[in-house]
């Protein structure tokens, strides 16, 4: 993490995977902590199953966008997007990736954690929880600007009663997944 609590985060996935939801959870935690928080989202045509990306920036920024090679941390809900959005992150940034297989060694970033979030989500009852498993993995690493309990509060705030419990369960599986 940089000084003065500045962090630039990307959330990358395919339309329909819940990229926007994860973005809002992280941003919600930033607002609750009293930090200046900025997000940028993809809407419209690209949401129909195409590659989508969101940014979260905390700290004193005026632009919601992240320049190539400047991001501190990335959540990849789909490993295929590493090639597409990976260049937005610094070389030493932390990558958290959903992948059923271990990724091939060449050109991989130095700090990468993978988890089969889709499989865990299916076990929990639906692939829609994939996004929260990856968020859990990221939160558990301690690399995010915000602590786990702020994210949990944000998940509860944004989930609605029906999904709150399942979302928190998926988040918890992600946190534990890191230690496996």
């Amino acid at each position: 993490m940089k000084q003065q609590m500045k962090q630039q985060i990307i959330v990358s996935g395919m339309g329909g995977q819940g990229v926007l939801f994860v973005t809002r959870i992280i941003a919600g935690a930033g607002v609750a902590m009293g930090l200046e928080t900025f997000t940028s989202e993809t809407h419209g045509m690209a949401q129909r199953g195409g590659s989508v990306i969101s940014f979260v920036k905390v700290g004193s920024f005026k632009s919601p966008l992240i320049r190539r090679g400047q991001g501190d941390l990335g959540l990849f809900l789909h490993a295929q997007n590493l090639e597409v959005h990976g260049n937005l992150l610094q070389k030493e940034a932390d990558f958290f990736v959903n992948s059923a297989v271990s990724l091939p060694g060449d050109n991989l970033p130095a700090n990468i954690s993978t988890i089969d979030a889709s499989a865990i989500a299916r076990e929990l009852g639906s692939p829609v929880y994939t996004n929260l498993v990856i968020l859990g993995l990221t939160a558990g690493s301690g690399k995010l600007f915000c602590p786990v309990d702020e994210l949990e509060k944000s998940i509860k705030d944004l989930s609605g009663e029906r999904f709150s419990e399942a979302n928190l369960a998926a988040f918890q599986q992600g946190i534990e997944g890191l230690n496996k």
Partner: protein
Amino acid sequence: MLDTNNITKKIKMNKQNSKLLMGNEAMGRGLVEAGCRLIAAYPGTPSSEILGAVVANRDETSHDPLHVEWSVNEKIAYEVALAASYTGKRAAVIMKQVGLNVAADPFTRSTYIGTKGGFVVIVADDPGPHSSQTEQDTRLFALFAKAPVFDPASPAEAGAMIEDAFRLSEQYEIPVILRPTTRICHSRQNINIGSVKKDGATAAFEKNPGRWVATPAFLTGLHNDLNTKLVNIAGRKESYPIRHYGDGSSKTCVIASGMAFANSFDLFEELELTEKADLFQVQLPFPLNSSFINNINEQYEKILILEETYSVIEMQLANRSIQGRSDKTVPGCGELTPDVIHDILVQFLKLDIAAEPSPPPARGRRPSLCPGCPHRASFFAIKKTFPKGIFPSDIGCYTLGVNLGAVDTCHCMGACISQGAGFYHSYAQDNGNFPTIVVTIGDSTFFHAGIPALINAVTQKARIIITILDNSTTAMTGQQPTPQSGVLVDGQPGNQVFIPHIVQACGVGFFKKCDPYDINNTRKLLKEADSYIRSDYGGVAVILAKHHCLMDKSNTIQQPRFRMEISDDCIGCGICTTQFECPAISLDEEEKQAWIDQDLCCECGVCDVVCPTGSIKKVEGN
């Protein structure tokens, strides 16, 4: 020189009462806070969520009634809101940039005629473009129509500028444009929540034919008044651009507006440029402040202009030594992202920074119609029935029918029907032979601009098949109701207007309905329609392909579900993946075997008829 202004003061962070709002939500909130009394819009990315935010905040306006509507198109929205302004109330209209093309007729005249109650036009631009058919710059359109235009650089500014825009409009009796861009509309930021203004105005239209009717005899005078208004607005000290970096002693400056300013500001910090050049933010790019024009041209030797997407500030500075679009320092197209501006600043300030190798990133996955989308079934049936047909289509999710080879043209709202007729006349006049022309148009697009085109095609004896893809919603922009839904923007019941009644009233001689999920039946109707258009008495044939959109998950749950599997009989021909193109079906090229991703499959059961070897099957007992 002012280094701060109203808007900047207003958006200073106040932690007690701030909420994380999307730019569109901030503008919706801003309209409600401003005591606006009538708001009309047509949905279009990136502007679509503004009206929803108005409705979400409407419970705070109980003291003053607020009429909110999804109009049938932008021209109509503009006219409805403009008349409300004539009665002395604050009114607003919201659209995307190409919507202003549709509303160009009322827009360009409204600056001459002027307004009474404050009248704000929110037009969201899409540099890039991300989800539009052009990346046109509404600020230039504003210059053309002689309307003042605000250019916000953040969601907070976009929300705060609304009150300023209303005041400017009221002071000069002129329509005022607020021009956010995609990055403003779809960014979220913590934003102060203000109180809602009590207006209390009652409708009072003062008749004045010389103004509201304004025959040509009056227009020179009105035009002259308009020019005077613009001179006065350009002279206001409030619109003097803000200097964010530098003390004014430098001979080098960067002048930016909107998102290009926000990106430049962060780059000034990242690249430590704060001592190297002055940085100005223009909040009112047209009419550009007149003393600013003089001061800049006198004081600075090196000037760089960064604005999206056309040259508006640059044109008004009218200084040949400026660096910007005219000397190609700034690219002539595309979004001014932080990466693009980085490279421009390095060049402009001759910074000693090694060029960063930036191989173009791999293209991501292309978007496609959702699993179970009824449009996919319609397109498959059309393409299969008329492999050599011509397929004009239109704006909406269904433009993605291009992936199935069933969309040959897409131009602007409603164009497909007129283009279908044009194709017919051009082919038929050669030797009477013409290919089967199958037009596809969505229900909301049909209401928006398809109806006059249908009347024209019928009148002119075009022989074409029009398939209206009726999924009972405006899907692409977020499920807004159509006139057929009988639901208003706030969920209250409205009156329904039915597509079949319209089609029949337009004099269409062949009209059949189908559920596109039944591909074989749809193909049968398409063949019947083809026989009709080629018969002696043939003309326009319309097929209404009606099946609800599955973006609303309650629709998916309610329809019959069939678990599908692909047997070993699959020969790997790829018809299901290329010609049907369901995201849930993939082809293992090595194994020559297609497979279904059950996570993505919505079990619509449509795909079994697609497979030539019958290998895609409904699982028995499900």
